[in-house]
């Protein structure tokens, strides 16, 4: 049986990381170039890890499925990145960022990891500025900050609504520098298809060259998975179309545990679904909640009239508007954490106050902000987001309030890792959104970018060296072993199966069906009966998928349907695991809301007595029920409280 060791260093919280770094084993520079490290993914986590490891002298092989590392999904992040710089002199500190993150995560994350994250956050900003990341500045030339949900200090650094783009370009440039030096070899348009283990250790991957279809073997002394989150299980999400769980899922199937799969973040401010043709959903950055006010009409007739097109928001007088977040949560108002804001929107819409044809939309209104600051200031802050909205919704948000609704956005769950960001498979590490590590049951805004860069620039370089220090005598790993042979054969067989199956339904047909099942039963509200049904339905869907899937084209060449088929096959299996996890967790916490467990006011009701643990699932084989392991979370520095944003 797999045993869970969190490997958290001894000593007081504030000293753990310093001590770890001081004690970590190093690899002699002359040995490093004989050691290979594979990094799957070139988002913030992967690009920063590959650049840093390359710089240290390791021989890095980097992979992404896009045509350039610069296009990883991190590019789409909008609002900002947190760091405890306290430039605004508003009482911020490492401890406060740590505290806010634990509280925001509804007391379901690991203290030591979160503290380290808060600690290195300030280095990220220094590093990025040194790289030429053009963060927003004030007229005095110093860096500007904005507030994000769930906190009462201004600690979010940003570059208009394109923070992810600017940070990723920074990491991509650092990566490019290493590529030009020869320390990183870049494999664009390559998809990792499986992990290869030799003698129990991760020693390589099988990858498919997406242009030629060739199946390749790549070996290494250690493998890092930085492949992003699995929000696309739901088909509709704010993730990029190609975002997928394959690398994480193959890690799971090769023995790494999967942590908290049911923790999914539904982001409150996205452009609502417009019809069946919809292929993805578009986020409107949380930063908009700094100045926008969320409301629905107080009267159902008004909501209906707006939905029917008989009235617009402008016809509703002030006294007939329900600013429900300000009403219910006066202390935080529109800046409550995401899970709280999303549930509140769903509650109002379910009660019949939604303002669109589908009944699933609320207003995000900037008229007060425009009155207060002028249109120019609003445009300077949010111009590109307003433009993005107008292109999609065909309405001008300077004149009419935006219509928004919650959508799947981020997955807190992911591959289980210890303090070293190492999975339960030795030599297999996971970073960024792909791991489960820092956000507990709910992530605070602007903390994913922080975590991705912290993992890649500042944590993995130490922990991987520490691991590899014992491996310096291991020669280059051969790709001719039986293990590589076997893994490659399995990959090829699966691809051939897809091509030769010649069923009647396209990949998207199955993906949409899966998304619907998971959204309805394991989405914003969950209950026992629905989850049990969902497990049945997903199993049936899986059977149908393998029977009736049609993938046109050939294996040996660019075939986007074939790429999707593999990803959806994995999503279907992961969807089932999410339901098991949601079923097991008989409490509500953060993004996981079990209808059976709520306070009289309808807020999430945790059960700390029984559920203060990380659920880490172990794969037991095809058609076997996975096994649950529990990592107990101990809080030595923070007192567990019911979260209150009132």
């Amino acid at each position, binding site marked *: 049986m797999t045993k869970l060791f969190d490997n958290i260093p001894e000593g007081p919280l504030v000293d753990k990381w310093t001590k770890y770094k001081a004690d970590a084993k190093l690899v002699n520079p002359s040995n490093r170039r004989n050691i290979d490290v594979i990094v799957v993914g070139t988002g913030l986590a992967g690009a920063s890890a590959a650049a840093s490891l390359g710089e240290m002298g390791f021989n890095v092989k980097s992979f992404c499925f896009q045509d350039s590392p610069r296009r990883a999904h991190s590019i*789409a992040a909008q609002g900002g990145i947190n760091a405890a710089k306290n430039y605004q002199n508003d009482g911020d500190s490492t401890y406060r960022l740590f505290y806010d993150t634990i509280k925001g995560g509804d007391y379901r994350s690991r203290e030591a990891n979160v503290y380290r994250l808060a600690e290195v956050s300030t280095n990220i900003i220094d590093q990025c500025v040194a790289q030429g990341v053009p963060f927003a*500045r004030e007229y005095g030339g110093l860096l500007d900050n904005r507030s994000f949900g769930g906190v009462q200090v201004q600690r979010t650094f940003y570059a208009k609504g394109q923070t992810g783009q600017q940070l990723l370009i920074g990491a991509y440039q650092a990566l490019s520098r290493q590529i030009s030096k020869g320390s990183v070899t870049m494999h664009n348009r390559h998809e990792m298809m499986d992990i290869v283990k030799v003698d129990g250790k991760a020693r390589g991957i099988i990858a498919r060259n997406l242009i030629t279809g060739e199946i390749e073997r790549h070996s290494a002394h250690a493998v890092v998975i930085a492949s992003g989150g699995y929000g696309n299980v739901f088909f509709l999400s704010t993730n990029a179309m190609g975002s997928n769980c394959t690398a994480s899922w193959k890690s799971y199937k090769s023995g790494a545990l999967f942590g908290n799969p049911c923790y999914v973040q539904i982001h409150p401010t996205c452009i609502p679904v417009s019809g069946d043709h919809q292929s993805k959903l578009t986020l409107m950055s949380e930063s908009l909640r700094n100045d926008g006010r969320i409301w629905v009409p107080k009267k159902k007739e008004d909501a209906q009239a707006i939905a029917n097109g008989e009235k617009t928001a402008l016809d509703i007088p002030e006294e007939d508007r329900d600013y429900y977040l300000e009403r219910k949560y006066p202390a935080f108002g529109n800046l409550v954490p995401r899970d709280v804001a999303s549930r509140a929107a769903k509650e109002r819409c379910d009660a019949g106050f939604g303002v669109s044809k589908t009944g699933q939309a609320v207003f995000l209104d900037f008229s007060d902000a425009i009155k207060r600051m002028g249109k120019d200031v609003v445009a300077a802050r949010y111009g590109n987001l307003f433009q993005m909205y107008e292109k999609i919704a065909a309405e001008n948000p300077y004149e009419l309030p935006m219509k928004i609704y919650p959508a799947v956005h981020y997955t807190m769950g992911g591959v289980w890792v210890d303090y070293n960001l190492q999975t339960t498979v030795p030599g297999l590490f996971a970073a960024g959104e792909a791991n489960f590590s820092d956000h507990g049951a709910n992530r605070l805004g602007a903390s994913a970018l922080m975590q991705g860069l912290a993992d890649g620039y500042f944590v993995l370089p130490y922990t991987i060296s520490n691991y590899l220090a014992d491996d310096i005598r291991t020669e280059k790993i051969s790709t001719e072993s039986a293990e590589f042979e076997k893994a490659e054969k399995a990959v090829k067989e699966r691809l051939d199966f897809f091509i030769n199956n010649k069923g009647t339904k396209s990949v998207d047909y199955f993906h949409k069906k899966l998304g619907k099942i998971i959204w309805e039963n394991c989405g914003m509200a969950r209950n026992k009966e629905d989850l049990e049904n969902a497990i049945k339905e997903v199993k049936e869907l899986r059977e149908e998928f393998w029977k009736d899937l049609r993938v*046109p084209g050939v294996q040996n060449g660019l075939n986007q349907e074939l790429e999707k088929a593999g990803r959806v096959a994995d999503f279907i299996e992961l969807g089932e695991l999410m339901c098991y996890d949601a079923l097991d967790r008989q409490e509500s916490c953060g993004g996981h809301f079990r209808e059976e467990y709520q306070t009289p006011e309808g807020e999430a009701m945790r059960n700390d007595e029984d559920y203060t643990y990380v659920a880490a699932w172990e794969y037991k084989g095809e058609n076997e029920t996975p096994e649950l392991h529990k990592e107990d979370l101990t809080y030595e520095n923070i007192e567990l409280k019911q979260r209150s944003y009132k």
Partner: protein
Amino acid sequence: MNLTLKVWRQNGAEDKGRIVEYKISDISPDMSFLEMMDVLNGQLIDKGDNPVSFDHDCREGICGSCSMYINGEPHGPENLITTCQLHMRSFKDGDTIYIEPWRAAAFPVIKDLVVDRSAFDAIIQVGGYVSVNTSGNTQDANAIPIPKADADSAFDAATCIGCGACVATCKNSSAMLFTSAKISHLAHLPQGKVEAKERALNMVAKMDELGFGNCTNTGDCEVQCPKGISLDNIALMNREFLGASLKSEK
């Protein structure tokens, strides 16, 4: 809406390629252009044909993957947006729409509408960065105040998404707008100034080596750039480049 699509089909780099006509019906004006392409591909798959390959990922105008030449313009008829942000309400019932890949010697077609843009990565690799290690032990981020105007100019140039529309629209297939955007982004910041001249020399040399053409100041690139990257960047690059060439001759 009912539409006639004339789509470039090319089965691999070696294939000659041709325009193939498809009829498509019941397209909603609220669909994005790529969602319309999804509908087309759904139809093709149902008939047992091969769907049209095209690059796309974020579908919100930021990753720079999507790259279609629509009715003779990169990213289609509207300005300041990418193909994935284009909506069918920009077309009329009964329209015929031509859909082709980027065409440039330095961007060979891989299949259908998919082209190889790795030449852009190669240009960045010869100097499109600040040579600083990632230790995090740099000075405090606020140690050097940067005038807001400079920071804003750097940001504007840095919003280039590397899509390649500038190259595709240029009659010389020049990569000047893309290259100058990076040079200008970094030259506007004190952190990037140190290497500015050398960076310009190396990136321009690489650009020429990779088969991108010369700039004849036609200005199409600026018009077609989805991010509004300005021609001023090219002027700045020319200054950096000229300064650098003079210095290196000495």
